[in-house]
């Protein structure tokens, strides 16, 4: 059953991705991207990553869709159709994919309970969460305590994005246009 859901959701993701690639309507693409996130959230639940799924749904399908729509109202709706097909991007992507597929050969099988990643560190995390930290959600324990420093960094990343958006869009457009004509001081 789990396997079946998995396959179906992955198929759905594939179709959505192709649709995003081919559509020239940016509004549609945005909506599809939101759908892509939502579908992947479902898949993530199926893969036992409930926290991640929660976040992906809220961020991918929520905030980032809103931001994209906001951008579209400020820009334009349609993507220009360009006829020329260039080989170089295609080949680059193909090479990347081929490399990754090559890498899968020696990967542990999907769902393998004896994967090396599970043998090291994880058992200590589970035991530590139970005995030392004593909270049920292992992900929270790792996120906020064992790897809490990463999370501090992550918060700083969000803050950085805020700083950037404020710097770029923090003022009315007219102010920016006025500022754009400024020349450096010649004498001060």
């Amino acid at each position: 059953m789990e396997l079946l859901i998995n396959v179906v959701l992955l198929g759905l993701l594939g179709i959505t991705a192709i649709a995003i690639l081919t559509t020239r309507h940016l509004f549609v693409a945005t909506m599809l991207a939101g759908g892509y996130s939502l579908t992947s959230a479902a898949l993530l639940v199926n893969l036992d990553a409930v926290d991640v799924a929660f976040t992906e749904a809220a961020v991918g399908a929520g905030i980032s869709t809103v931001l994209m729509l906001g951008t579209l109202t400020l820009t334009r709706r349609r993507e220009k159709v360009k006829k020329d097909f260039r080989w170089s991007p295609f080949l680059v992507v193909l090479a990347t994919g081929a490399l990754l597929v090559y890498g899968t050969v020696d990967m542990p099988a999907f769902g393998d309970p004896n994967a090396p990643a599970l043998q090291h560190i994880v058992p200590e995390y589970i035991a530590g969460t139970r005995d030392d930290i004593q909270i049920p959600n292992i992900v929270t324990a790792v996120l906020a305590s064992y790897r809490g420093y990463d999370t501090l960094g992550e918060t700083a990343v969000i803050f950085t994005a805020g700083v950037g958006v404020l710097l770029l869009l923090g003022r009315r457009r007219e102010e920016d246009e006025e500022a754009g004509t400024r020349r450096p001081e010649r004498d001060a």
Partner: protein
Amino acid sequence: MLELFLAKYNYWIVILLMMTGLYIVVARGNLVKKIIGLNVFQTSVFILYISMGKVAGGTAPILTGRDEIFSNPIPHVLILTAIVVGIATTALGLAFVVRIREAYDSIEDDEIDDAEKQDMARDLEGRLP
């Protein structure tokens, strides 16, 4: 053969998804579309990470007191961080797009290139012999 497929199909499809996302980024000229591509690319990487943590028959890593097999929580933690980084990048990228549209009146890279070529020509105009 089937066994190999079952062991790896998740990764292979995810790789295809990643390729699609990356292709949108490198091949499409629309600035918003590129950001969407970036999102698809990154989301697919997230799935790749989470897939590697999945344990067949495991459950979400939340202690319930019973003796259970948990899926690997570390990729979950990493990806939570990565999602945040992703949305931060998206927000900033889209802010650039808004400003570019205001400055160039376009969000297509070829049109912007043309405009920049004119800027460049203007830079050179005052060039002394």
